[in-house]
């Protein structure tokens, strides 16, 4: 059995045997390993990450640029230097914000008319306007935002959190992904994969409806009663087998996972059963409206999951193209904002009214933003060099705009936040020191933030 050194020590000192098993039941049997908590109190216990796939336009939603209006129609001034782009847009005329921005709330934080509902919560948002990454391509940027690396196959942020902190509910996975039914991310499931971490830490995809998890129902149509009878016989067989094998831990664990799987057949449908939610709650999330039903349902599911102890929920917005508005920002963002604005606002409101606000972190953002130049007239190309992600929850400052892009929104300029700093800050909020959350793999103690030691926590945004 190949184990990381930390795990080996854990087994050595933490004790194995049946007593030790209770610690690791059972979603994460392999290694509830590192006990990565540092000596400060975690501000956040759980995360809901609203992943806006395709790259929403910061200059049209959260990062107003008056200079862009002034220079509308002109090429980018030489003073900005050459810029790497995905498509040949570098010389295209600059395109001003599609819709007006307004000051909102007490804080006066500026938010576009694209998002009137979220704008009502301006005083609760911590808008990082200076995020930046390293690739103009979707999959590399999807990977970097979700795993810390532009290369394929590294463990995702959710899997790191699952590995470091586990689930608060042993009947549920620590890391759940609620995909967009319209299609997957560019880059596919590796974006929520476990990379070199054990498979038990990968994101478990769940859906609304009667089959929230794959293989939850018997393909042979066995009833719960028949299954129980079968399981009883199986477990008696397994117990004899176990007794003849010195009560081997791994064998015991599988006996327990069969029971957990059986229990989940009841608990997982309950998890996604919205019939117990009040009409006003359904309205709050827009579940009652056609345009917002899908994303609203998934936002509501995310709330139900964190209530039940799931550690990390990622909700995807946007099918395979998603927010990738190359040709017409008004049309693309118009539809997606209409589908998500109310559900997101409803989620923020609901977290507050249910007392979940203080210990939950909400993240909103895509794999990059969009260029100030136009593409095909009214569209925009990818921009990883400076864009917006916002956070919300009791652990971060509300009504805050942190950092800034340059005058036209091309590059992060003031207080730039590289993705790795964003990840380190996210772990910090969860009470985890990114340097200590590591896994021995191919000769290295690997970390989410990589081997570099110039990673910084964004202290100013912490509440």
């Amino acid at each position, binding site marked *: *059995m190949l184990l990381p050194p930390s795990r080996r*020590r*854990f087994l050595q000192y933490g004790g194995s045997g049946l007593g030790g098993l209770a610690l690791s039941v*059972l979603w994460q*049997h*392999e290694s509830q390993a590192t*006990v990565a908590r540092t000596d400060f109190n975690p501000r956040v216990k759980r995360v809901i990450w609203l992943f806006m796939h395709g790259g929403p336009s910061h200059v049209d939603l959260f990062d107003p640029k008056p200079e862009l209006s002034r220079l509308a129609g002109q090429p980018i001034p030489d003073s900005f*230097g*050459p*810029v*790497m782009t995905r498509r040949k847009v570098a010389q295209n005329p600059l395109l001003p914000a599609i819709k007006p921005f307004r000051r909102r709330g007490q804080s006066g934080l500026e938010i576009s008319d694209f998002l009137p509902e979220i704008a009502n919560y301006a005083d609760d948002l911590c808008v990082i306007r200076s995020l930046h990454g*390293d690739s103009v*391509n*979707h*999959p590399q940027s999807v990977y970097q935002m979700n795993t810390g*690396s*532009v290369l*394929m*196959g590294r463990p995702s942020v959710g899997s790191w959190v699952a590995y470091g902190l586990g689930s608060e509910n042993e009947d549920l996975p620590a890391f759940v992904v609620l*995909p967009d039914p319209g*299609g*997957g991310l*560019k*880059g*596919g499931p*590796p974006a929520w994969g*476990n990379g*070199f971490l*054990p*498979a*038990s830490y990968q994101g*478990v995809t769940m859906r609304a409806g009667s089959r929230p998890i*794959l293989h939850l129902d*018997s*393909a*042979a149509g066995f009833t719960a009663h*028949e299954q129980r009878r079968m*399981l009883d016989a*199986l477990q008696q*067989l397994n117990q004899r087998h*176990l007794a*003849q094998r*010195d009560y*081997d831990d*791994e064998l015991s664990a*599988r*006996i327990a996972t069969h029971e957990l*799987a059986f229990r989940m057949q009841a608990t997982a449908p309950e998890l996604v059963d919205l019939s117990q939610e009040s009409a006003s709650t359904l309205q709050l999330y827009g579940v009652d409206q056609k345009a917002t039903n899908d994303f609203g349902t998934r936002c509501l599911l995310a709330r139900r999951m964190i209530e039940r102890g799931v550690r990390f929920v990622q909700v995807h917005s946007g099918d395979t193209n998603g927010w990738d508005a190359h040709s017409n920002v008004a049309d693309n963002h118009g539809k997606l904002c209409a589908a998500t604005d109310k559900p997101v606002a409803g989620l923020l409101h609901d977290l507050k009214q249910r007392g979940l606000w203080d210990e939950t972190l909400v993240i909103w953002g895509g794999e990059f933003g969009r260029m100030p130049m136009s593409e095909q007239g009214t569209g925009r190309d990818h921009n990883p060099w400076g864009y917006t992600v916002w956070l919300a929850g009791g652990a971060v400052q509300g009504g805050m705009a942190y950092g800034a892009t340059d005058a036209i929104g091309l590059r*992060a300029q003031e207080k*730039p936040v590289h993705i*790795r700093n964003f990840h380190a800050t996210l772990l910090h909020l969860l009470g985890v020191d990114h340097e*200590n*959350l*590591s896994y021995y793999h*191919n*000769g*290295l*103690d690997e970390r989410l933030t990589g*081997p*570099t030691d110039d990673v910084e926590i964004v202290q100013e945004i912490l509440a």
Partner: protein
Amino acid sequence: MMQSNAAQARACWFALLAISNPLSLLAQEPFSSTRFPESPLLAKQRLDNKPLENPAQIQEPPITDSDRDHWSFQPIITPPVPTTSMLSWTDSPIDSFVLSRLEQAGLAPAPEADRGTLLRRLKLDLLGLPPTPNELAEFLHDCDRDADAYQRWAEKWLSSPDFGQRQAQPWLDLARFAETDGFEHDRVRNEAWRYRDWVISAFNQDLPYDRFIGLQLHGDLTGSKEDQIATMFCLASADMPDINDQDLRRHDRLNELTSTIGAALLGLQMHCAQCHDHKYDPISQGDFYRLRGVFESSIPELKRDQPFNLFAGNDNKLEPRLYFRGDLRSPGPIVEAAFPRIGIPEDSSANCDTQRPRESFSKWLFAQDNPLVARVIVNRVWMHHFGRGLFETASDVGVVPAGPTHPELLDWLAGFLREHQWSLKALHREIVLSATYRQASRQETNDREWSARLAKDPKNNLYSRFPRRRLDGEVIRDSLLSVAGLLQSEAGGESVLPPLPKELTGTLLKGQWPTSGREADHYRRSIFIFARRNLRYPLFDVFDRPDAGDSCPQRNRSTTATQSLQMLNSELSNRCAAALSQRVTEDCLEHDELTASNWISRLFVAALARPATVEEVSLFESFFANESSRRAACLAILNSNEFLTVD
């Protein structure tokens, strides 16, 4: 405990810095070669593509005597076989090495496993399939008449075409093999299956390991199309053909292949040195880029949207150079192709022929004084049979991990492989015929020393018994199909795509999982299932198949509820349970009476290669009543720990 671990890592890092070269001070960066925001200055440098100011020479720490003292860098000198007191047990020199350690610890080896267990172990290890009831009966019959029965069965299975179909998968794990590019488009590599077939065939024909590796490094130079396919090993990694910056694509691929070759063939974690000198091992950044230089001329400038997955001669004139921080935008001094210095003994004159660098490299790998290659491969073969290596980190012979539990045995095996002209089958044979391998994994009725073994050798480091382990996902599927009588024997050719739930295919681009039209194809062996990088076949996925992101020396072995859900509820396991039930019923009708006890007994033999006990018959008796219950009983057996593990 993690803190102390990390603190220790930091301490070593600083200690090394003090004696390391000044360049490494710059070099503490992650692997991404595009790590800075696209500032105007850097963008300009990138567009100009000029080397930055750099020193003319690479300064790097010399290889010291203390570096060379590390076990893996010592020359391999075949050690004498130790003398032991219990002569009757030493069927192979392997056993003498194992026994001598056991005797030192005051332990006797475990008795031989019972015949059925042994047969099941042997077939699962060699062929990845469970024995059939007929095979079990024949084997038991043979054993009664012939002392060499086990040996003959081992021989038979070593010659079976199924052998390569099992042995190929661990190699494909190492080769981070998949049949698609990954990233956004995850496009199909049309001929990738030919590499899979090449590996299967190489193992079946027992292509000597030196030739096996040689062809994977430079098969394009022989003029044979089939040999050229072998070079996919070097280029099987994920790739993004539509990336804007094709120089970056080439850079990333070269660095990746250098890392994989270092890990898979040499057991050196070269990848740590692409950005900076290795923090612990004597591998400098210069070593990394000189090794990369061996392949530099084989990857031409790449063209957008054009695949490049096989070598085709050496025609590139780009000069190998070092890249500071691994960053393409920070080109450093020019280097010359060479082998990692720590692998070259002090008195050796090994030198890379820069006119034929890949051939020269592969020749050096198998030179008599190369200390790494033989140790690394014999350990992998050992690991295949015992579930773990003589050293556990099978792709890392560096200074951090624990060394081998049995260093002399390791070197004896390395010597054995060389003496047998790098025949891997000879090595498999020697191992499976050893008494060490044939030990019981649990207490046999007449074994009084079992508790002493558990007490004195709790982790089984001394091999005082056979280590039990869970089967791999691919073997589980093949076993399900095999006992159900559904497994198709057709081998080779284009990969097949069994049906998948739409929830899974919905995470892909349209048309990326076109289900194979012929139903029989859905029941071919796991090795022939299409390996899409962006979607692992779900049963393999939950049972820890690696993601083909990088070279995987050994899989995790997790135990999760999603495994149970699939095994209990999936279409596949229920289809197999139904087929097994029907098969057992027909079997009863053909050979004796269809009664509960006959049916249950035959079920156990079919699925677990042993008859049911009296208690087990009564446990399942009530399930005999109707077809639905019989299927449930079959499903229970297919989910049992006994079915899912090898004893």
